[in-house]
């Protein structure tokens, strides 16, 4: 970086980098649209209108952003502890399944009991699916990227089995249609609606509250301090007497729990009030388990900034569907575009971190101590070592980073 920029300028630039990356991906998408014989200007204006152009569009965007925010917040917790969680897809599925089973098998209870019960069931399902790779990483040194991907595969098969078999809507068997879906779940478990809307439920509010609570957890509690300390340097954390292994297992468990909550909200906030699958994970999650990672990166791995980042990304997805309908291209285009956005945002992320470090160079502090646990470390430790400084520049006061 030969051009001298003030701290302020660097901050603004660092901020805009992930957004610029999204635009770069959309530019790539424009080329694809041209090749498909569609007008990219028409496509993208339809996209914008479809995402933000009306009250209904905004509601759709906010509802789409909700699972992204839950997952993204969980991703922030995991990444701050230097754990990569690729398993949110599977954790969402388990959360959805646990919540669905709670509603199917528990006796009918009033709404103010039933809604918390299904949400807690979702948390538990996701937590279980996060705890497994967490414990495997902490105690058996199993690379969490691989174990979470494998658990995604297990989760989708489990979902297909349950929704085709034990949990299937009896009416589907009677009719012989056998669509893999549950019956309409009990009404008292429906997420309460807000503002007299027929579909705007409490999910988005809950997600925002969870993001704020996560901020407090990470920067204002001893547990949050331990999570971040382990993320910055396992070696130092161990010397400080922090139970590193337990903290790693806990980070993935918490991350999974929030993804599980997203799964529960997806089922009980849906308009059909059933759990449905088309036989793939995406059929249930809409790739929110992967896109939540991007939302977290767009938000600079900060829970509060993940809120607007999820909103933007939700708009991208809702708008993408509008674009696809308007210019009549196969919906596979949206999956491909989604992939491009992931690649561009992740590739640009390093430059954001670099801009946020004080001297304009990436601060890549390498752990000098090689503990047994370090062997399969990811590069996150190196990439995000400068991140807490970034946190300050997002407007939080210095004391936020101090140990309580």
């Amino acid at each position: 970086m030969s051009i001298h920029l003030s701290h302020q300028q660097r901050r603004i630039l660092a901020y805009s980098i992930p957004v610029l990356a999204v635009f770069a991906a959309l530019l790539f998408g424009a080329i694809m649209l041209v090749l498909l014989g569609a007008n990219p200007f028409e496509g993208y204006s339809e996209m914008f209108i479809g995402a933000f152009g009306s009250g209904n569009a905004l509601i759709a965007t906010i509802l789409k952003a909700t699972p992204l925010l839950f997952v993204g917040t969980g991703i922030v917790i995991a990444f701050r502890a230097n754990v990569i969680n690729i398993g949110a897809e599977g954790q969402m599925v388990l959360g959805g399944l646990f919540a669905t089973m709670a509603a199917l098998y528990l006796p009918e209870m009033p709404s103010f009991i039933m809604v918390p019960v299904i949400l807690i069931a979702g948390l538990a399902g996701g937590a279980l699916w996060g705890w497994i790779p967490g414990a495997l990483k902490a105690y058996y040194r199993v690379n969490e990227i691989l174990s979470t991907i494998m658990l995604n595969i297990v989760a989708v098969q489990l979902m297909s089995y349950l929704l085709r078999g034990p949990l299937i809507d009896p009416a589907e068997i009677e009719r012989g249609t056998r669509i893999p879906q549950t019956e309409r779940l009990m009404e008292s478990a429906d997420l309460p609606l807000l503002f007299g809307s027929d579909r705007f439920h409490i999910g988005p509010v809950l997600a925002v509250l969870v993001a704020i609570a996560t901020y407090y957890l990470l920067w204002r509690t001893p547990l949050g301090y331990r999570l971040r300390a382990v993320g910055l340097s396992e070696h130092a954390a161990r010397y400080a007497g922090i139970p590193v292994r337990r903290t790693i297992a806990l980070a993935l468990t918490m991350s999974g729990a929030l993804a599980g909550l997203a799964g529960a909200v997806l089922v009980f906030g849906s308009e059909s009030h059933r759990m449905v699958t088309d036989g793939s994970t995406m059929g249930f999650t809409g790739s929110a388990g992967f896109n939540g990672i991007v939302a977290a990166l767009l938000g600079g791995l900060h829970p509060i900034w993940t809120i607007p980042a999820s909103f933007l990304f939700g708009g991208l997805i809702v708008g993408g569907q509008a674009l696809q309908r308007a210019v009549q291209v196969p919906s596979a285009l949206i999956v491909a575009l989604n992939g491009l956005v992931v690649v561009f945002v992740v590739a640009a992320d390093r430059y954001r971190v670099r801009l946020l470090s004080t001297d304009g160079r990436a601060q890549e502090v390498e752990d000098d101590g090689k503990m047994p646990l370090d062997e399969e470390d990811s590069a996150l430790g190196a990439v995000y070592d400068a991140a807490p400084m970034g946190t300050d520049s997002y407007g939080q006061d210095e004391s936020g980073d101090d140990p309580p």
Partner: protein
Amino acid sequence: MSEVFTTAVMVAVVASAIRLAVPLLLAALGETFGQRSGVLNLGVDGIMLLGAFSGYYAVLKTDNVWLGLLAGAIVGLVLGLASAVIAVTLKAEQGISGIGVYLFGLGMSDLLFQKLVGTPIPIDQFPGVDIPILSDIPYIGEMFFQHSLVIYLAFLSIPVATFVINRTTFGMKIRAVGEYPDAADTLGVSVAGVRYATEIIGGTLAGIAGAVLAITLGIFQQNLTNGAGFIAIALVYFGAWRPTGIMLGALLFGFVNALVLELKTLEIIPRDLSNLASMAPAIITILALVFVARRFRAPSALTKPFTRGK
């Protein structure tokens, strides 16, 4: 049960296991080169899907299976190059960027299929090549020596890869860059250059693996690989970063898959439980990862981007 596990059934299962193992084997072998040099490419499945579609499309248009393989290889090479730009030059977090490549491949292959083909039309498959004399041995011949040329070549590539990695200068550079990039850099080895080379090899092999899969099945459909690329990545760990270990892993997976398929066809596994049976490979992988993590060590620079003088 006894009448089910007849010799004929077992012979068919073993022969099909070998065929099913080959795409996994090729993709995992390619991934090994990358990982030994310190790059984790999680986008293998996406590259396989695009390789599969281009292979399928080329055969559909030319009726030549070898041109299909070539098309898969070229597409794989280009995507390997793109993966190298992302991981090596842009130093993106490899655990996530690969998911982006996967989603891109998943969507793009489906999009191209819908736009260019539409309805699944079967294509020519690889011609079988019986090895003289050996293929006439009862049972053994049918299991091992009545396959297509690609299958024999894929298994031949194992000793070749072992030789390249362990006995050549290029292989030594790959290992040096994967274990001690700083030292390799000091000695004048281009860390970025070696990693570009291994990513291109990996991409090309993944593209070929996809094309082999499509041509072996004689068809293309949305998400044809069904996660095979991710299994291939896990196989690299399973085989402890050694080609021979990877081959054994691929054969085991091929066998499990073939057995599950056969048991489903014979309705030993009720249709209702077939999803549970399909979990087997993923669960075996997780258990194997526990075992491998106790005994073997990943290349120490794996997933760590290299910056000189840090």
